[in-house]
């Protein structure tokens, strides 16, 4: 965690010497992730810059805590921005004209809030038992009950369904009791 404050400060003060170091230490990993997932180098560069700006803007507003190393957090932020790009075509409500009207910064603000919501869900998922996490991850990944039974050695599909139901209820309860729930899930 030694670099956390150092890099956050570099972002707040736009310190180019420190940012060069941050770039050479972290960009290669992001680049290979994007290249391995249907992207080009230019996409990786774009994502990397956006993630850094996102962290800076968010930190300026709320001084949020990064519980992992800065490097790990940055990599996750980049991965999420890339997931977001890949899923943009599936987007429901927003139309192109909305994006045009809002401009790039509007879209960046949405991405930031979506990242916060993702963290809220992820943080609470980690609070439930390991077994519950396993079954829910398969469930959300749309794995059929038949295969859930097989993979987790349940005795029947009914047992698997009950397990999913209970685990999801527990997770929902935790999320709804989280102090940030209202501001983030009404979005």
């Amino acid at each position, binding site marked *: 965690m030694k670099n956390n404050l150092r890099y956050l400060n570099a*972002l707040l003060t*736009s310190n*180019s010497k420190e*940012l*060069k170091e941050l*770039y*050479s230490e972290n*960009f290669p990993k992001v*680049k*290979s992730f994007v*290249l*391995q*997932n*249907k992207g080009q180098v230019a996409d990786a*560069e774009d994502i990397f*810059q956006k993630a*850094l*700006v996102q962290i*800076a*803007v968010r930190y*300026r*507003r709320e001084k949020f805590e990064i519980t992992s190393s800065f490097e790990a957090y940055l990599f996750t932020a980049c991965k999420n921005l890339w*997931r*977001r790009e*890949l*899923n943009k075509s*599936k*987007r*429901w*409500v*927003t139309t192109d004209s*909305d994006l045009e009207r*809002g401009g790039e*910064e*509007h879209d*960046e*603000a*949405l991405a*930031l*809030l*979506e990242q916060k*919501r*993702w963290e809220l*869900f*992820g943080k609470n*998922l980690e609070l439930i038992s390991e077994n519950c996490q396993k079954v*829910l*991850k398969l469930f*959300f*990944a*749309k794995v059929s009950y038949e*295969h859930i039974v*097989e993979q987790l050695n349940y005795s029947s599909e009914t047992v698997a369904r009950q397990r999913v139901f209970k685990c*999801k209820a527990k997770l*929902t309860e935790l*999320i709804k009791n989280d102090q940030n729930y209202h*501001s983030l*899930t*009404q*979005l």
Partner: protein
Amino acid sequence: MNNPDQQLIEHFLREVLSEKEKKEFLERVKTDHEFRKKFLFEKQLFESLNENDWSFIEHENLDEVQTYSALFKNDKTKELRQVLKEVQVEQNKPVKKKSRQWLLYASAAAIAISLSVLSLLTNKTNNNELYANYLDISELPSLSVRGDNSNEQMITVEQLFKKKDYKNALPLLEKALNISERNRATLFLYKGISEMELKKYQAAETTFNTLINSELMDAPKGYWYKALLYLKMNNKQKSIEVLKEISTNAFYNHQKAKKLLKDLE
């Protein structure tokens, strides 16, 4: 929320509703406020916690969005963007060679030797890095067929392969190739890649060649993975030859092959 509603939402999100049911579902979401609220929460859960998905914001005109939007536009952020752009441009510049005549004269022989060793090493790293960047197992077709009960074995193989557990996947793939008439090209690819990742280079070469020489529709895919194999073996010349063949004949991944050729030059 009552149980049937919960189940209905779950079925919608897990994509098991028929077209007609889907239509009815969406109609209800529009008109039934309480149902919509529950649905949106479940949707957020599903999309956030599925690694291949992403949960987008539905209501965009809230104060919070406006506040952040303004922060992304302000001068401090503009300054940061500018600096980041400069840093990136600088990082992309090729490293300049230092021309210090006296140093050249002083130990020409020693430098020549160390440079050749160094270039061998960097070459190896570069080739390995390119291999890692270009090998994308997610672009391979799936081995399992929806609705087919006889393919449990295939599902297991695919799962092992996707988890990169090549050691355990390989014997199952060999077995499958001995008995299966279906999906043979894909099976060859899975097998060759497993061998390549396990550093069984000769075996991998044989597998890809068998595929290339077969009558299977997907036979040309073998060329692409053979090019990657040579790259991993650090045999740049052979890799380039295969890539040129892919590019000239517009075989599978010919655009990528062109790009990789450029990277190798």
